[in-house]
């Protein structure tokens, strides 16, 4: 029942998908151990990252400063101020942004049974950005900017899905990506228009600076503002994890198994878009994280969403901490992290695409 036949279905029907997703599986035990390991790595990274900068601290010093503050023996030392008022909130925000984008990407990939979709390739990031830019243009406060980002993201993914479903191409995988890219570029034009009409002395710099995606001015308040929606989205996705696995089956099968696919898909899209919007509202468009990180996480965690989601989030957080730390110290002035993620993400995406085309 095996031998030759085992190869045949992949060559025959084998859309890239199965080839990208099917890889030698580590044993379940190994897989279960990856998350604690990743968490440990993340904590270590954070401790190191806190120490890195123009006022360097060794990991031991960092731990001491953290401990003293928590123990209530906070001194007015420079180290305490730098760690607690500048570096920690910044690292916290960057972690949450990375985690939110990676979790959203993992959800979108599972939902569309497509390892190439992500908040950015689906146009969600651009939609959220346009919403946020419009809100900034009208001088709205942060809560409104977040809401506008959420609405913009939802509208974008809705439009992309509508167009993609109307285009009856046989390569649904590529159609969805192309539609996403096309819609994203249209939304990009909308952003450009908003910048064009923005006040060049006031609003325009704010928009431009925000769009490039920087964590430089992160505060504890910002941290809370992203933690709330992103956390809520994460909890919803985690609770629905097993159902989302069933949703990864073809539509008919999921429905025949008793899943209300439309309702569930709506919930997942809303949650993933909320996470994306929360990230975009604080840091602008930071691309690639939502595409590359979940893909890597899937290779380690396997296809089950209950494992994929937390590992994606932790890996996204770790990835973003590294990127932002490099952005802080690499050049004399700050480097927008979106530039760095693009430098890392583009070649990885091209490699993915190359493998996809080969498999077809």
């Amino acid at each position, binding site marked *: 029942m095996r031998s030759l036949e085992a190869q045949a279905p992949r060559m025959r029907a084998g859309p890239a998908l199965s080839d990208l997703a099917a890889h030698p599986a580590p044993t379940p035990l190994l897989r279960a151990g990856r998350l604690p390991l990743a968490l440990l790595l993340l904590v270590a990274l954070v401790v190191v990252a806190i120490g890195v900068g123009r006022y360097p601290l060794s990991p031991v010093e960092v731990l001491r400063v953290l401990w003293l503050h928590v123990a209530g023996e906070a001194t007015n030392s420079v180290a305490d101020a730098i760690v607690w008022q500048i570096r920690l909130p910044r690292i916290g925000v960057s972690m949450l942004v990375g985690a939110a984008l990676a979790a959203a990407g993992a959800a979108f990939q599972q939902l569309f049974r497509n390892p190439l979709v992500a908040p950015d390739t689906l146009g969600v990031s651009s939609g959220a950005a346009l919403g946020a830019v419009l809100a900034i243009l009208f001088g709205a406060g942060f809560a409104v900017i977040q809401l506008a980002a959420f609405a913009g993201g939802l509208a974008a993914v809705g439009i992309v899905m509508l167009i993609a479903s109307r285009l009856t191409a046989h390569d649904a995988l590529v159609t969805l990506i192309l539609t996403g890219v096309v819609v994203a570029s249209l939304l990009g034009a909308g952003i450009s228009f908003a910048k064009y009409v923005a006040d060049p002395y006031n609003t325009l710099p704010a928009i431009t600076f925000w769009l490039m995606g920087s964590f430089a001015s992160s505060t504890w308040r910002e941290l809370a503002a992203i933690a709330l929606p992103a956390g809520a989205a994460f909890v919803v996705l985690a609770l629905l994890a097993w159902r989302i696995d069933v949703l990864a089956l073809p539509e008919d099968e999921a429905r025949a198994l008793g899943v209300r696919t439309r309702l569930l898909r709506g919930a997942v899209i809303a949650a993933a878009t909320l996470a994306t919007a929360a990230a975009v509202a604080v840091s602008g468009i930071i691309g690639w994280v939502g595409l590359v990180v979940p893909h890597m996480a899937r290779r380690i965690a396997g296809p*089950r969403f209950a494992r994929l989601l937390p590992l994606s989030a932790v890996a996204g957080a770790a990835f973003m901490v590294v990127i932002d730390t490099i952005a802080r110290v690499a050049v004399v002035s700050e480097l927008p992290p979106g530039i760095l993620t693009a430098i890392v993400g583009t070649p990885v995406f091209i490699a993915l695409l190359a493998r996809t085309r080969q498999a077809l």
Partner: protein
Amino acid sequence: MLEARDLAFGFPARRVGTGVSLRVERGQTLAVLGGNGAGKTTLLRTLLGLVPAQSGSVDIDGAPVASLTPTERARRLAYVPQQHVPPFGFTVEDIVLMGRAARVSAFARPGRADRAAAARALERLRIEALAQRPITQLSGGERQLALIARALAQEAPMLMLDEPTASLDFGNRARVLAELDRLRDAGLTIVFSTHEPEHALAHADRALLLAGGRPLASDIASRALTADNVTRLYGIPVDLVEVGTRKLFVHRADAPGPVPG
């Protein structure tokens, strides 16, 4: 019991078939036959309640299928779709557990009882050894058995299989058909579509022949599957020959020996 009366099925823009009436009792097997594009899959999807009927009715144990919630439907009817390569490398155990979706609430994960049901399903088909293998790496026959196991884990009294033997080799075909016989004997109601009239004759109690979207025959298998009907169904001259206890349909061009009847 599954009953359809004067069923028209398809889509508002494109009607696929009309005038189909059928009735399958508990513990019976119905085979659906028809040429390529005759609408077998659409008919099954309509019987499953996945596509609304254009007119007429489909009743499951006396209740209209359209009136059932997705959960109720899944508890009564299990579906084994046509073969395809799944998108992600879930293990066979994961896939079979998904058969429990109608018994696991939206925010929950499958529990001990669900795992036991999945294990029973794997055991019944004697594929426990495949449990930890990724479904993407199975052969066609193994994957078909895994999908049947998923349907069994659903613990529905009725099983619908869309061309369960298509793309299987000779041995796997026989294995899957023998499995269907066993399940029928265990009291399940089975509907399957096939391109092999002989399979229908040997393994089904009743047969529905679809030609051009209309039922050519809907009767006890041996009455529906005559040489005449099969000839009309596929548009080629066919003879029914008996070899020992087996009945075979043979294209007349290469019929062996004198033509009976």
